[in-house]
């Protein structure tokens, strides 16, 4: 049963790194196509659209952070910790918020980023407005990160 505990915890770690990473890769790729189009039409806009392209990339970083925290809690960098089945499932559950929210928020943020790139390409003076709109989508990725982070840190303290 102890082996199953570590396996579930590792599954959680994989989800935390895989799903948001997938979403971010897709999101940055989508926004990148739009950014390249904007630069084709107006090369001076490069620095502005680059920021918008990068915004959907943050979810992948959040996922990576949670995956590292989980690995650290499991003692994968030093002495491996004892992980019961219940604790393993708890680690898995702790990783799910950033895994799922990270995936979907990255893709939705990319769509808003593309819309903002279109806005900037037509009205280059509207950078701040164009930044705020995709940044709002980030809120939900940050909330999920917070929940996952607090959960992963505190699972080890629970006596299960």
């Amino acid at each position: 049963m102890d082996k199953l505990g570590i396996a579930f915890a590792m599954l959680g770690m994989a989800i935390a790194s895989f799903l948001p990473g997938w979403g971010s890769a897709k999101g940055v790729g989508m926004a990148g196509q739009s950014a390249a189009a904007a630069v084709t039409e107006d090369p001076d806009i490069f620095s502005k659209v680059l920021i918008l392209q990068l915004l959907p990339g943050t979810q992948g970083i959040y996922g990576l952070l949670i995956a590292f925290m989980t690995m650290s809690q499991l003692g994968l960098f030093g002495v491996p910790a004892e992980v019961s089945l219940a604790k393993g499932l708890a680690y898995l559950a702790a990783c799910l918020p950033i895994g799922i929210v990270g995936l979907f928020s990255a893709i939705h943020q990319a769509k808003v980023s593309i819309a903002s790139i279109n806005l900037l390409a037509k009205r280059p003076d509207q950078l701040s407005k164009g930044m705020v709109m995709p940044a709002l989508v980030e809120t939900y990725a940050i909330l999920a990160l917070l929940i996952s982070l607090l959960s992963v840190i505190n699972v080890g303290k629970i006596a299960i």
Partner: protein
Amino acid sequence: MPEDYIYAVTRIHIRERNLLNGADIDALSSAKSFSEALSLLAAKGWETQLVSGGDTEALINTEYEKTWALIAEAAGQVEELNIFRRTRDFHNLKAAIKLTYTGEPSHSRARYFLDYGLTPTERIIQAADNREFSLLPDYLAKAGKEAWEALVNTGNGQLCEIVIDRAALEDLDREGKASGNPLIRRYATFTVDTANIKAAARCHLLSRGCKFLEHVVAEGGSLNRKGLIDAALGDGYEIGKFLSGTPYEGAASTESSGAFERWRNDELIRMIRPQAKAYSGVEPLAAYILARENEIAMARLILSSKAVGLSESAVKERLGLTYV
């Protein structure tokens, strides 16, 4: 796939800044002279240096070509947009047959043909010159043979045009129905239906008989073909009654061909306008092609009217909504 053509769509949206908007069309139609109208178009990036005297054909063709060049550059070959390119093939077929019949020398033919068709222009010309229409793809071969025979047997260029126009509409209908894209399907049905309504109304005004109507009204679309033909053979109100309860009810209240054209263009623009906010997919590309065709047609109308000194009000009757 919803994430397709993001690059192309962004480029198209940026280029939409250069489309003529309502204010531009008003300014153009209010221009005091042909040359003032040309200056306004030049400010919007139109190649007005191509205009020689009052002949705007080179300018108009160049603007059409620019649209397709941009689509080809940004999106490459998009199979779903071939439906628009096939229309150009039918135009080229019509030109090739007429030029062969009139014996126009090859060196002066180029300006009659449109680039970016699906079938190479050279092949269409070769087929017409040698009367070997079997060289052409199926969708052109039958129409080409029939149009040539109609022209040779009657010497009537209009009959040749009717044969090809009808074949083009029926091909558009088939391709539209086969397309998985809702906007393209809707556009094809709308185009076939409105062309049939226009043909039926014109035949009614000219008191044409049933046989002629059956010749010009294309099969396909969403309207009952027999019902439309019967309505055209009836009194002046029959077409209106036939259209009531259909999506084309608004066409019945138009009182002239100019008003009908305006209604038709406005409906088309309303159909494609939501695409101005889409971030990906084929639909915004199709909408841009149609928006460009609409603005080029408007500019052509205005320039022609300025060249012959037509009144501003007569032109404005035909000018409707713009995409941006």
